[in-house]
């Protein structure tokens, strides 16, 4: 088999699984979980030759082209491509998704919609793999929307709970805002350059066919799509709520599929963004990285803490991309995928054992759940950026890129503060979670008593992911495979050394603070909160962004719809009623003939067609002589028309 076949197998195996599962899942033995897990491992195995090919030759490029619609000169292409970045993403996404599928077998055990869950999960993975492989804007948008759809289905999977149903809707609607931007951006590119293909778009931009403010605006429109999908400020509000979905789904969304899509897309279409666009992106990303970190400090729901940490890390990725750290940003995407999937699955393991998500009811779980503890520890160290864990390498590179950018453009000093401050916050909230959940005395003895380590089907994925969370940063393999598509400016020489020092310092300080506060008790979290009550309240309420949306967007919108309804009811209906009365008055004056015409005109629309049918039907007499008469008559009529 050639490589293209493997790629197609990797892409379509999950779709095949989803199709079979949605129709036949309930009738299959074990409700088809083995099938859905199986196809994911098939997909993963099929992605390995691709990775090997890319590994052997980093400049490797494979294109599978087809046309979808051709109409004269206009055509919409349907192409897949594999290069270094795709090769990595294909392998990583299918790998992580495979283990999340496996883990779900344990976590979702006994759910009434068990089979449907796996169908959705397969479909989600298929959408993401397609997005990764797309070689043009048209196709990437199709899969972009499919990712949005499947996330909606999975976040609202337990739709009996209003919170889950609302979270699904929220994710979908907020994402739509971004998607519209993305769509407008694609259309702008198409009208200017006349193509959807990445290659041709980049060529056109490099040739200067599109430049200046228009390109900046286009880039920002495209970026808006990523703001929605990758949950950047201010469209980040859906991600924490998405915790209402089953925990493995959260892991999938946070690690491999949904939020990765935006960052990946920005990396894929990198040449579309102008330096001006990147400045805007950098600030959006910096704000996301820092403020999400501050919110994470105050949350007590274990999944929400991790969710806000994801937001913050996504900010880092975008910050890296925007400040010239192309490789660093995407590298963080990959390392983050491993350790964040791990952390979510570990959190799921805790929730599975305790049946609570509240950190205040945990504590002292280290002895009870050793595998979960140690694997989550690995994840947290990677998240905090402690060497030699994977997160250290990627985050250090991002901070290095940001510092380099700030040194070259001192007016953007704020970005450096966001980056380094965010690193400190990361250490702090990550270990706050660890210490609260796993050390100290159990705060809820009842729950602690019943806690137990999860079954192997859940712990094996944890261990496997932990291995990667530890080691994914070693060896410089990523830099070898991923090359920036454009020439990037080199930052000042000192930036990286400084970044190394600062990021280590920040992470260490953060962890130390957490230790002092939650283990030693030198600092009382409660007292700090009391002291800075307004700040704490602001953070605890997530900067009131949701409330701002409610007051600034949702309520005015609802008011507008009510206004429209009132207008419709009062003015339009009034006008219609007035017209009716007027017409009736006039008809009464003009008498029954007019009345009849008005009536007839209304009914004509519906009845005339039917009446014609009935008349025409009469011609079909069943007498063959008549038929022949029609035939010859038809010939005669045509001849007469021609002669006349």
């Amino acid at each position, binding site marked *: 088999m050639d490589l293209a076949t493997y790629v197609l197998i990797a892409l379509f195996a999950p779709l095949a699984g989803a199709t079979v599962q949605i129709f036949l899942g309930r009738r299959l033995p074990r409700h088809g979980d083995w099938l859905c897990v199986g196809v994911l491992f098939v997909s993963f195995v099929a992605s390995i030759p691709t990775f090997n090919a890319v590994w052997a030759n980093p400049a490797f490029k494979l294109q599978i082209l087809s*046309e979808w619609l051709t109409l004269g000169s206009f055509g919409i292409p349907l192409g897949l491509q594999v290069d270094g970045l795709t090769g990595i993403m294909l392998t990583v996404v299918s790998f992580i998704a495979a283990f999340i599928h496996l883990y779900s077998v344990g976590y979702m055990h006994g759910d009434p919609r068990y089979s449907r869950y796996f169908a959705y999960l397969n479909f989600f993975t298929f959408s993401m793999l397609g997005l990764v492989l797309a070689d043009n804007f048209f196709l990437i948008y199709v899969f972009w929307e499919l990712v949005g759809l499947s996330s909606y289905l999975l976040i609202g999977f337990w739709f009996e709970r209003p919170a889950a149903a609302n979270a699904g809707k929220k994710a979908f609607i907020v994402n739509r805002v971004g998607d519209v931007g993305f769509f407008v951006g694609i259309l702008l590119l198409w009208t200017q350059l006349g193509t959807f293909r990445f290659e041709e778009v980049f060529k056109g931009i490099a040739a200067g066919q599109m430049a200046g403010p228009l390109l900046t605006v286009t880039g920002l429109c495209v970026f808006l799509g990523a703001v929605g999908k990758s949950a950047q400020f201010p469209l980040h509000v859906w991600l924490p709520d998405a915790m209402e979905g089953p925990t493995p789904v959260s892991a999938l969304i946070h690690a491999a599929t949904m939020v990765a899509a935006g960052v990946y897309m920005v990396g894929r279409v990198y040449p579309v963004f102008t330096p001006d666009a990147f400045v805007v992106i950098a600030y959006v990303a910096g704000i996301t990285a820092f403020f999400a970190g501050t919110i994470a400090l105050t949350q007590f729901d274990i999944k929400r803490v991790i969710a806000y940490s994801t937001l913050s890390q996504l900010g880092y990725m975008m910050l890296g991309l925007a400040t010239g750290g192309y490789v660093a940003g995407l590298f963080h995407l990959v390392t983050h995928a491993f350790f964040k999937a791990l952390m979510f699955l570990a959190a799921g393991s805790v929730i599975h054992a305790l049946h609570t998500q509240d950190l205040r009811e945990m504590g002292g779980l280290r002895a009870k759940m050793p595998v979960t503890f140690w694997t989550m520890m690995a994840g947290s160290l990677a998240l905090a950026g402690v060497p030699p864990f994977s997160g250290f390498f990627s985050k250090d590179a991002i901070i290095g890129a940001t510092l380099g950018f700030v040194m070259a453009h001192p007016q953007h000093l704020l970005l450096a503060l966001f980056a380094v401050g965010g690193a400190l916050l990361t250490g702090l909230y990550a270990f706050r979670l660890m210490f609260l959940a796993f050390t100290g005395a159990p705060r809820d003895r009842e729950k602690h008593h019943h806690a137990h380590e999860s079954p192997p089907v859940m712990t094996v994925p944890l261990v496997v992911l932990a291995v990667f969370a530890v080691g994914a940063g070693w060896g410089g393999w990523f830099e070898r495979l991923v090359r920036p598509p454009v020439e990037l400016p080199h930052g000042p020489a000192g930036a990286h050394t400084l970044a190394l020092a600062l990021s280590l310092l920040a992470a260490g300080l953060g962890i130390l603070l957490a230790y002092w506060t939650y283990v030693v008790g030198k600092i009382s979290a409660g007292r700090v909160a009391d002291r800075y009550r307004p700040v704490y309240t602001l953070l605890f309420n997530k900067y009131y962004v949701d409330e701002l949306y409610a007051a600034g967007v949702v309520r005015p919108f609802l008011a507008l719809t009510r206004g429209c309804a009132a207008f419709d009811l009062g003015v339009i209906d009034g006008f219609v009623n007035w017209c009716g009365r007027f017409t009736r008055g006039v008809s009464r004056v003009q008498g029954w003939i007019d009345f009849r015409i008005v009536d007839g005109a209304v009914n004509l629309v519906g009845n005339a067609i039917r009446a014609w049918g*009935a008349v025409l039907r009469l011609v079909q007499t069943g007498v*063959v002589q*008549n038929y*022949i008469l029609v*035939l*010859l008559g038809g*010939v005669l009529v045509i001849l007469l028309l021609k002669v006349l």
Partner: protein
Amino acid sequence: MPVITDNIASLGYATPELVLAGFFLFILLADLVFTRNRGQMACTLAILGLAMTLLVTLRLYPAGERLLFAKMMAIDPFALFFKIFFVGSTAVIVLLSPATAYIPRTRQGEYYAFLLAITLGMSLLASAADLVMIVLALEMVSVTSYLLAGFMKEQAASAEAALKYAIYGAVATGTMVYGMSLLYGITGTTNLYEMPQAIARGGAAPLALFVAVLLVLVGFGYKIAAVPFHMWAPDVYEGAPTPVTALLSVGPKAAGFAVLIRFFYAALAVPAGPGRWNPVADIDWPLLVAVISAVTMTVGNLIAINQSNLKRLLAYSAIAHAGYILMGFVLLNGQGLYAMLFYLIVYAFMNLGAFLVVIALAGPLRSEELKDYAGLASRTAFPAVAMAVFLFSLTGIPPLAGFVGKFYLFAALIEAGRAWLWLAVVGVLNSVISLYYYARIVKAMFLEKGPSGRLTVASAHQVLIAALLIPTVLLGIYWAPVARFTDYSLRLLGPLAR
């Protein structure tokens, strides 16, 4: 275009016809010799014959463009396209027949033999490059059709259908042959590919030529059931055994389109650049066909609205679809022809599918009346869902194959400029009308209350329905391979393009 005058050498390119003829005779013979399980054996042989025909047809690729048997037959990608098309649609009919009760047990051998014979006739028609050959092939298709339509001769409806069909067909063919004789008188040749030069040389009176063309058109119009040459269709479609009706609404209709295209584009048009033609000697046959197209779809749809029998309803729907397909014919460009061929493929899947559901339900339901379809979805879900998909595809609703087909037709019309915009408008309006009667069936199946009690549909039919359903959906989403094949198959006019 290479001409192969040697008959023996020509045989090498006529293998599909040879195989079909061989199996036709073989089934008749075997039916006489063997005494037990004759129907089953005939069916197996027919499948075998069709499979072998497909195989030898595929072996003719990559096809050049050749004239065989002293310019009687043409073998080119266009002809091969239709040969595959006919083999495919006949195969569906053969496969669905054993699980039905239409065909008397004692005459099953003949039935399958005739199915191969009609396929043979259609194959010849798609290749016919000479007026004489056209008449012979057309008659072969027609006569076999009469036999098949009257196959349940014990039933009055079937016998009546066959008789009407034969009388009507005789008049139509007679008219056509008369037109051809005029054409021969004007041009002095019977070969389609020699006609343009002959017309250009001769300086015949345009009116005489028009009359000849119009009379020939009667014969082709009768085969594709275009108004006003359509009147046989509803009676025959209703009276004939339903599998035969399904075949008649697809196979011979497509054969009619094949010969229509070859006749008009080879004999009555001259190339004007790549993928474009002009009518020869300024006979305005495109406008003539355009009017027929508009009238055909309108009449077909309007009468379909009031039908209560599903077979009859589908008969009128088939008439309307002939009108749609004709839209591509009038453009005199490659895009129009492309849209026609593509639509034919799509039409075969969805129309055979709709008929298949009617056939599959005729057994357990004992009815083909619309009123008996009420509440069908709750009695047997899969055929009802499939029927809904086929009907929506026939309407042209995305993302189903019918939408893509119609999209190409309308796009070709609109791209051709303002001259044909009116036809596109008529077509769109007709699609809307058609939705009314297609949706009526869906409404009956899903929304209306009917008798309870589960219906079981033969598993062979379920499999076949699925086999037609999958392409109907799939071709609405991804059709690039079919599009490429269709594009390749447009090479019937190579000699003209030169």
